[in-house]
């Protein structure tokens, strides 16, 4: 499986000195292939999240296209693209993203329940993920009872429950301690070795150790590849 961004740009409209158009992502072309772990670094505001959202089918670029095995994501119908997000992509967004009315385990199984049922095998896989991420004791807790780092790990488990071909992680270790940071990176690395394409946005210099490729972003451009 191959995900290619071709000359993608994203403009935002906002008041600035001479123009009201701000280009957050500026004519970027990159590939993410199966089995590869790619780390994107860069200063705050350089456009990392914007690029990740474009790649993961969440934000339509102003120009350019994103192809999954040759199919342009943003030419698909909402249902087709939604299915791809559900089946082929696992996204760990920046910030907290729990559904408050669901327990931890229900949050994790939700992607499967959207298009069917979670069977016993899925539930034991969810438990395995909880175990691996060291939050097994929180299985039936409510999100409101969790710490920031625990919520983050719950979001990671939710992104991985469907064994997606591509994993997108936006600062997945932002609120984790060193021990858990290492745990999460090695876990994501493991997924890459198992054949997933993994795309991580991170400030952590440790991340480089796990990367097959490191990209540096500055002012909407990829500086170094």
């Amino acid at each position, binding site marked *: 499986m191959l995900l290619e961004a071709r000359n993608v740009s994203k403009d935002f409209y906002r008041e600035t000195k001479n123009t009201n158009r701000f280009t957050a992502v500026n004519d970027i072309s990159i590939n993410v292939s199966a089995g590869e772990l790619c780390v994107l670094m860069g200063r705050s505001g350089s456009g990392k999240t914007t690029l990740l959202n474009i790649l993961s089918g969440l934000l339509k670029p102003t120009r350019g296209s994103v192809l999954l095995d040759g199919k342009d994501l943003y030419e698909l119908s909402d249902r087709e693209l939604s299915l791809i997000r559900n089946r082929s992509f696992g996204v760990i*967004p920046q910030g907290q993203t729990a559904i408050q*009315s669901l327990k931890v385990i229900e949050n994790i199984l939700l992607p499967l329940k959207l298009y069917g049922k979670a069977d016993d095998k899925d539930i034991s896989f969810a438990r395995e993920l909880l175990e691996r991420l060291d939050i097994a004791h929180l299985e039936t807790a409510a999100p409101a009872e969790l710490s920031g780092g625990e919520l983050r790990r719950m979001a990671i488990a939710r992104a991985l429950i469907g064994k997606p071909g591509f994993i997108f992680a*936006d600062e997945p270790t932002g609120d984790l301690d060193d021990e858990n940071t290492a745990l999460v990176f090695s876990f994501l690395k493991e997924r890459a070795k198992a054949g997933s394409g993994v795309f991580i946005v991170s400030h952590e210099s440790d991340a480089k150790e796990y990367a097959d490729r490191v990209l540096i972003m500055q002012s909407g451009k990829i500086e170094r590849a």
Partner: protein
Amino acid sequence: MKSLAAKNLKGKPLRTAVLVILSALLTFTVFGGTVIVESLDTGLASLENRLGADIMVVPYEAATQKKFEDMVLQGSTGYFYMDSSKLEMIKNTEGVKRVSPQFFLASTSSSCCSVAVQIIGFEPETDFTVTPWIKKSYGKDLEKLDVVVGNDLNAFVGDELSFYGVKCKVAAKLDKTGTGFDTAVFTTEETIKELIRSSLEKKMNDFKDIDPENSVSCIMIDVADGYTAEEVLNDINLHVKRVKAIQSAEMISGVSDSLSGVSGIIRILMTAIWVLGIVILLLAFTLSVNERRKEFAVLRVIGATRARLGRTVICEALIACLSGGAAGICLGILIILPFNDIIEQMLGLPFLLPDAVSIIKYVIIAVILSALSAVAASGTVAARISRIDTGVILRGDN
């Protein structure tokens, strides 16, 4: 997705309770209001049906003192007499097709009832107003000292009732009419004259020196084809002394006027409460969904379609509104059906509950309305949330 909607509702019990109570009140208002308005209509129709004569002639004083009207509409008791020679005069008036006399008496001393009872006697050979609906409850002719009781009286077929010391047998009980006739007792001319004589003997009759054989209380008139009720009525009022001819339609028109007034007020209140309720529901849903914008964005991230987001919102609204609606209907059934007598007294108008089929129809309409208002109140929010820009919302604002 239904389960997510249900869990979202459970997750915010207070807000959900407010939504449910609000829709319960809405449905209660619409269901209750409809039942009351329809009961008034049914009551009026039943009154029209029961009066059955085009013109009624009563002694002049009875008409001016509103005795007769109150008797028919409110179920109050009264009796008055005029000379039976009037009957002959009226029978010979041009345009009169048929006439039949009635005889009234009121009894405070009957064994069945704590309140006074109106007794109405009719002449079986000529009667065309009472007999048709007695026939519905009782197939045979009434024997001497047989009576037929109105639906609201605490007496049953086979019971023995005593009026002025005369023992009568209940031969039948009439269906409910929602009019003053529900507390009346009907019997034949022969029986009521016996009762009148007995009331005179016991000196319990206000008319000390009437002769039952030569008295009538009211004369029912059917107008012949080719004549209007007004013509005949004017003729009688002009030529027959000390009587007043009343047009049934006119007496009812007073009722139907105040009835349409009451119905109108209820309808306006119903609409106002409904509109207000939808506005409040709309606000509540908007707040509740906006508060969870990020959660809806997360649903998009994990692969929910736009349509599905909208459906989740509408589903939440439907669950809340329909369970509230069910509660409102139960409340309506519990309050309005058992207490319809009290409502009737309060309104002072003919009031007859519609039949079960109609009530089921109103239940269905109320359920559909509460579902519709759920969709109306949540539809725009649902449409808006389904268009959220996921990539923009989920940008690490945390």
